[in-house]
Structures are given as C-alpha cells and as structure tokens.
C-alpha cells in the first residue's frame, strides 16, 4: 500500500472498529439511548437544550421560575455540535457521536503513529489503543460522549512533538496550540492532559537543547489565546461549584480490566490499558533504541499514568503516600479535577502510538508480527475490556401524562439515606423527560448539588402549600401550570397525602404508566384564580 492509500484504509478500518466497539449505537437511531449510567440522560438533555441557550448560557426553559445559567459546561464542543445539529433528533445525535467520536479519535491516533514511522497494519494498534481504551469505554457507558470527541489530543501531541524538534516550524507550534485549545474546549480533562504532554515533551526538548524559539513562541501564544479566556470564563462563572469531598485515591487496579461490579456500582470508570499496549511500550527501550524522540513521548505517557493514580496511594494498611497529582489540588480550580484517572487518556495515546511504532520495528524483521499483535489487541478490547458487550440501551421518550403545554413542576421525594446518587438520578430522569415533552421545568439540569436545584425548594413549598389548600395559588405565583407527581417514589403515607391534596388542583389528572414510570400530572385550570 502507498502511504496515501494507508490513510484511507486506516480510516475505513478504524470506522469498522468504531462501529463494532460502540454497537448498537450505529443503528439505534432515535429509538434508544445507548449507554449505561444516568449521566447519559443529562448528556442527551444538554444536546437537546444547548441550541436554545442564550448569552452566558442562560436557559429559560429549565431552572424555573428564573431560568438556569449554564456558564460552566463540561464541553463547549458538544454544545456547539448540538447547536449545529439542532435539526436532528438529540438521541440520534448522541448515538451518532458515539460512533463518530470513537472513529475520529482512533483515526487521529493512527495517523499520529504513522507520523512516528508506523505503517499499516502496525499503526492501527495506536488507533485501537487510544480510541477504544478503557476510558473510551467508560465515556460510552457513563454517557460522557464528549470525552470521545477528541482527535485534538493526537493533533496536539503530534504537532508539539514536531515543533519541539530541531526542524520544528511555526506551523507546528500553531497546530499544537490549536490541538490544545480544541481539546480544552472539548473537555477540561483533555485540555489538562494536553498541557501535561506539552510540559513534559517541551522539558525533554529543552534538556536536549532542541527547542527552538519560533515554534515554541507561536505555540505559547496560541495556547494563551485559548487558555486565558477559558480560565476566566470557567473560574468567573457565577455558579461556582463548591468541591467538598476529597478526590479519591486510586491505584494500579484502575488500569486493570474492568469487572462486572465496576459497571454495577463504579460508574464503569476504568482506565484499562490494553496489555498489548503495555507490553510493547515496555519494550520500547529495546525496539526503538535508534528511533528519534521516542523517550520524551514515553515519559509524557508515564507522567500521565502517574497523575492518573490520583493524589494519594492508599495501601491496605491505611498509610497514605502523596503522589504528584496532589499538587493539582493546590492550584486554583485544581480541585475540580475530581477524576484524575482521566489523565490516562494521555498514556493510552502516547504509549499506544509508541506501541504501534514498536510493532512496526518488530514487523520489519518478522512481517507477521503486527498481525499477531492486532489479534492480541482485539482480545484485549473485546474480552478483557468487555466492549461492546457492556453497552446497554434504554428506551427513549417521556411518559405520556406530560402531554400538554406550559411550565410543569416535577414533585419528587428528597432522599434521606445513603443512596447519595439518588438526587442526581432523579434530576437526570426529569431533565431527560424534557427532551420529549418540551415543557419548561424547575430543575437545574447541570448542578450536582441538590440544594442548588430550584426544584427542591419549590417542591418543599408546594407540599406545604398543598397541605394548607393553597397549592394552586403557590404554583400560579411561580408561573407553573401543572405539577407532575412521581407517586411510586414516595413512602406510602406521603403518597396517599399527596394524591389527596393535589387532587384538589385537578380532579381528573393525566395518568400514565408508559416509559417506565407512573406519572400523575395535575393541571391547574385557568379560571381558579388570577395569574401573576
């Protein structure tokens, strides 16, 4: 194959691999949400809602009565894509982005490996390692599709690797800055990973006195142009997030194959690195001895691996050792990086690319070697990584009782026990319903803190008002025309009380049992009092 043919063949192979890895996303269309955990519902809500956001992220259809301001989004790239694709069904967009994200990221990594000298089929190992890593699987299952939209990290790594060599040019510095900025806008984690790559590769280049002023200066200026506005917007957002819980300690087990229990109770969060990637990366000192510049890439990957272990290591005896990631907690906003395991995106990319280059070195002597290694990688991803067998689908839609117009207040219980994620689950559920019923709601669909969700205070007020027989006036005063009761979630006594008290608002409420939940929607008739 000619190098030009390799580009397109690599693209087709990565597309096929992405379709298999993400299945059934490619053919689920708009009928099913593909993913496993409840953040998936929030992401689909964001895809649905982002096109209507006003200046400063203001959304007047959620967070009622005042509206919610989503200035601190996880992914500006996803918001921009959602706006561009607003004519498509949001579930279809989400499912398509799963495939496209994995494909583009894998293809970009494959091209990065090709730039390092790996030729097909050895270069495919890089695409499989990065685009279909344990973190990619986590993003699919958790519903964080924007983490997959990242061909920008490979672009940044390649461009900065070129810029930091003696033959580096200004265009390489500019492309590195572009890759960094785009990664940052895709998710802050990718931006920080890109920064780590830039620092380690740049330091190694300085050490060898290869870093030239022009490409480095262009890269620095470009990075500042992206980074400074981002930091100002992010840290200056009015809804500053308070982070109280400590960042959890990690361990080497984060890199091992994910288990069924991790899917059940651990949000599927795993940085599983394919054994093939690890084995080849560990043999780089022998296989790539004469290859220019592999050490700095290897070191940058190692730095990401160490950071992925988190701020501390907790052996069974309880002793805690501080790790480099602890330093991140000391900088402004560093505490927001609550999932340091995501630094492993960096090592899956860099070690994956080096693994591909090492496989190429093996293939030069033993032509069958790359094929053997690809077969091992397939076992790594399919059996040990468990994809696509870990994917799940959820029916898409909202209970039919929501049919109607005007703002609706969802009435749900507050959790009092140890099910500390229940509030977030309920919030995701209610917000996902809005994708289909399209009525204004009280929930702030992004805040992770129940006490900052307007629905909670409104619900308390409504329950108290309904007990006094003033439920309708309470709702009218706040602009709501209906209340959606989720009766199954309440304790029996509360349920009976609410059904009785809310029955005074609407003697013939809409009741539905479809879409997985019983919903009773009480609509206030307009002739029972003046609107505010």
């Amino acid at each position: 194959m000619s190098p030009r043919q390799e580009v397109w063949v690599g693209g087709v192979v990565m597309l096929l691999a992405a379709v298999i890895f993400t299945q059934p996303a490619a053919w689920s269309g708009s009928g099913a949400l593909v993913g496993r955990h409840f953040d998936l519902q929030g992401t689909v809500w964001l895809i649905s809602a982002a096109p209507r956001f006003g200046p400063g992220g203001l959304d007047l259809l959620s967070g009622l009565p005042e509206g919610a301001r989503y200035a601190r989004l996880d992914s500006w790239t996803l918001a921009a894509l959602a706006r561009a694709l607003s004519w498509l069904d949001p579930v279809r967009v989400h499912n398509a982005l799963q495939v496209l994200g994995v494909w583009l990221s894998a293809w970009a990594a494959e091209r990065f490996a090709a730039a390092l000298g790996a030729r097909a089929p050895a270069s495919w190992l890089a695409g499989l390692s990065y685009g279909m890593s344990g973190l990619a699987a986590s993003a699919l299952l958790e519903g964080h599709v924007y983490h997959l939209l990242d061909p920008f990290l490979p672009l940044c790594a390649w461009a900065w690797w070129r810029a930091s060599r003696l033959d580096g040019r200004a265009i390489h510095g500019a492309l590195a800055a572009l890759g960094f900025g785009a990664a940052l806008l895709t998710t802050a984690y990718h931006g920080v990973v890109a920064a780590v790559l830039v620092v380690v590769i740049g330091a190694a280049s300085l050490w060898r006195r290869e870093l030239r002023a022009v490409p480095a200066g262009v890269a620095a200026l470009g990075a500042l142009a992206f980074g400074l506005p981002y930091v100002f917007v992010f840290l200056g957002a009015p809804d500053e997030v308070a982070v109280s819980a400590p960042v959890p300690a990690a361990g080497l087990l984060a890199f091992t194959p994910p288990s069924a229990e991790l899917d059940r109770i651990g949000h599927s969060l795993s940085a599983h690195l394919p054994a093939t990637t690890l084995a080849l990366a560990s043999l780089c000192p022998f296989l790539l001895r004469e290859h220019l510049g592999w050490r700095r890439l290897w070191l940058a990957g190692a730095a990401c691996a160490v950071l992925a272990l988190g701020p501390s290591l907790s052996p069974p005896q309880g002793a805690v050792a501080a790790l480099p990631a602890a330093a991140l907690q000391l900088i402004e906003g560093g505490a927001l990086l609550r999932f340091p395991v995501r630094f492993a995106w960096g090592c899956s990319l860099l070690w994956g690319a080096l693994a591909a280059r090492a496989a190429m070195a093996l293939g030069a002597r033993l032509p069958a070697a790359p094929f053997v290694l690809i077969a091992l990688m397939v076992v790594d991803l399919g059996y040990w990584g468990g994809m696509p067998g870990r994917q799940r689908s959820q029916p898409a839609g909202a209970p039919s009782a929501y049919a109607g117009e005007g703002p609706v207040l969802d009435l749900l219980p507050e959790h009092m026990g140890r099910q500390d994620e229940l509030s977030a689950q309920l919030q995701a559920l209610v917000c996902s319903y809005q994708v289909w019923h399209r009525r204004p709601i009280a929930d702030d669909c992004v805040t992770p803190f129940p006490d900052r969700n307007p629905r909670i205070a409104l619900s308390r007020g409504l329950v108290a008002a309904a007990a006094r027989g003033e439920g309708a006036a309470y709702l009218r005063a706040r602009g709501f025309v209906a209340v959606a009761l989720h009766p199954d979630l309440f304790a029996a006594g509360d349920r009976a009380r609410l059904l009785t008290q809310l029955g005074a608002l609407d003697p013939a409420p809409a009741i539905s049992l479809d879409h997985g939940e019983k919903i009773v929607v009480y609509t206030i008739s307009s002739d029972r009092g003046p609107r505010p």
Partner: protein
Amino acid sequence: MSEAPAAPPLRLTVRLSADAVVPGRVVEVEAQWLGEARRLSLRDDGAGGGGDLPADGIFVGELRGARPSLLPIAVAVRAAPEAEAAPVWSGVFRPMVEEDQLHLRLIDGPGGLRAAETLAAPLGERADAREAAWTAAGFGWALFVLGVCVGLALLGRERA
C-alpha cells in the same frame, strides 16, 4: 411526545443473606411497581427461585413485570410469622438489565437488625474473591502478552 414502546421485561431477584440461620424468621419485601404495591415473602426453603438453597441463611425471591425506571423497595424481617415486622432496609433500586439482582446483607448490630446493600454474590462465592480472580487473570494475560512480544522480538533478532 413519542409513541410508548413495549416496556422491556424485568426479572428481579432479591436476596437477603444472614450470618445465622434463625428458625421461623420471615423476610418480606414490598415494592412500589408502576403504581402497584407488590409484596413478596423471601424464601429459604429451596423454593424461592433464583438458585435458592434450603436453610443456607440466604432468603431469595423473584419479582417479574414490565421494567420500571426506578423501583422503590422496602424490606422487613419478622422473628416469627406472628411477630411484628421490623423494617431493615429501604431504597430505590434502578434496574439495569432484564435479569437484575438486589443483594442485601442482614446485620445484627447494637441498634437492632438492619440490612445493607452488598455487591453481587453468586451462591457459594464471595464477590471480592471473584473480583480478585478476574484481576489476577488480567495480570496473567498481561504477562502472556509480554511473553509473546518478547518472543517475537527474539525471533525477529534471529532472523535478522
């Protein structure tokens, strides 16, 4: 508003394990399932379904129906069939798959009986042992792959 698709089915197995076998103990489950209160007595006589074994201290029962998004469940224990029911656990279960499981462990502490949710535990096997075996096998696989790579490198060197 979209057409409601046929609700996927759910077979939920509820297991409550106790360290000691107490003769006459009754375990009751109440689930609020799509607007309907469903009650179920968990069995430890081999007839509870879901792999129930007689008198092993693990009470088992099954609930079936259209899959709800969230399923509030309460569990109570009676020391004897006529004794007063003591609530030991309540929570909201989120079914994930068609055949899902809720595992609870009964704890007899200073404050009386209570139950805590535990990890999946196939009968006769501890979950952490299963986890450890999987992880150990993963390390074994990694060593095997490393061996293959080293072998390929050595073979290539011989041919060079």
